[in-house]
């Protein structure tokens, strides 16, 4: 269990346990359109996190009493696979934590999706954590944004999420599981890159005002990289078909 008594030294010579600099992201890899049956989908590898996101809709909202006659509703389900994690997070099924993350994810997307374009409809977002290593809600939101764009759902922006925190008195970006467990503070945030709008802000621990400003600047800087990866993943799905055509033409 994480406690002060057995806390390892997380920062040595300005480097973290996995060799990253303080403001360095873990490697991110995204693949869009991986599921055939879903309207949009994405698979994301973020360090040791493995996330699968699928989007269905817009479709007629069921049961009918949940329909909103002027706008679409979003349903979001975040779930961890029973084999996804070590220790106590290994429990599966709907629990307090999953319900909470589903709610904050839904609220983040409600402010960017053009809900008024599809009145009376429902958009389903499913986020499945296959393997977790800290920062899964940020990874889930980042993957779901790609899946939504892949489904062609009208959105104001392609959002991303990333966390920052504080450990050993230093601000660090993108905490992994160990850093998260022993950190003094962990703060996931979702951001719309177009105007820097904050869509999700949660905090576990304590930060000073000045530290928070510095951390946010760090997250926004890192966000540029995440956005570029997201867009590249979406474009990749179309490049692939073009390459296939050229290949098949040469074959014939």
């Amino acid at each position: 269990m994480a406690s002060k008594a057995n806390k390892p030294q997380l920062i040595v010579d300005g480097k973290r346990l996995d060799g990253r600099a303080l403001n360095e992201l873990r490697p991110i890899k995204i693949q869009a359109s991986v599921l055939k049956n879903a309207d949009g989908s994405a698979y994301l590898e973020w360090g040791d996190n493995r996330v699968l996101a699928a989007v269905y809709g817009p479709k007629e909202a069921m049961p009918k009493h949940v329909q909103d006659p002027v706008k679409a509703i979003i349903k979001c389900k975040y779930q961890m696979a029973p084999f996804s994690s070590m220790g106590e997070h290994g429990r599966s099924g709907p629990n307090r934590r999953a319900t909470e993350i589903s709610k904050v994810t839904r609220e983040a997307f409600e402010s960017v999706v053009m809900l008024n374009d599809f009145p009376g409809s429902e958009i389903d977002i499913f986020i499945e954590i296959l393997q977790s290593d800290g920062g899964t809600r940020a990874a889930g939101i980042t993957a779901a944004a790609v899946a939504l764009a892949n489904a062609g759902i009208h959105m104001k922006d392609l959002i991303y999420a990333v966390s920052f925190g504080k450990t050993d008195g230093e601000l660090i970006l993108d905490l992994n599981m160990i850093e998260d467990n022993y950190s003094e503070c962990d703060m996931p945030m979702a951001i719309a890159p177009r105007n820097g709008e904050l869509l999700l802000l949660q905090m576990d621990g304590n930060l000073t005002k000045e530290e928070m400003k510095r951390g946010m600047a760090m997250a926004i800087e890192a966000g540029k990289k995440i956005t570029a990866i997201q867009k590249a993943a979406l474009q990749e799905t179309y490049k692939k078909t073009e390459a296939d055509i050229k290949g098949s033409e040469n074959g014939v």
Partner: protein
Amino acid sequence: MPGDVIFDKPMRMDNSYVENGKTYAEVMGLFDSEKGSLVALEGAWSPRTDEVVIGIITNSRNQVYEVDLSFYGRAILIGSKYDRQTYKLGDVVQAEVKDIENRKTVILWRPRTLYGGTLLDVKATKVPRIIGKANTMIMQIASITKSNIIVGNNGIVWLKGGDIALATMAIRKIEDEAHTSGLTERIKKLLDTRQVGGTNKEIA
């Protein structure tokens, strides 16, 4: 990409929105600067008046029919008591969109029953490509496969007679490669080589 600036001034076009005097994209799409339009690559069908659609009758009461157009809203076809034509549940109809209420209830008119045939689901965003400029693409498929083909803008295609398997194959190919150029020639090649007694039979 969603959130990308298309124009520095407000423009009114599909799949975009205006904020603070700038026009932003709200879908992933291809921007045509000549026509000034943003064509979505993926997405659900949104009804528009005068579009031809294909649907299945799912409910009827007193000459008012509910039609399943496989989208998020609902569609209604209002018959009159002087109409000779009545529809049964499960009938496939082709109709035009007369009016749209609250962006989700579609009123249909000019119905026509389609007897027999098979239905094919395609992506609604790819329908313009399947039809082609001035119907060229769909005429080409129809003339070579000798099928009757009707393409509904809601993403349902009705096919009857002729070489349906080949026509389906061609439509699926268009759907997959809609964003590339030179598609008409490739489809022609496919149809020529695969058709029964075609010119290039050994390749098929």
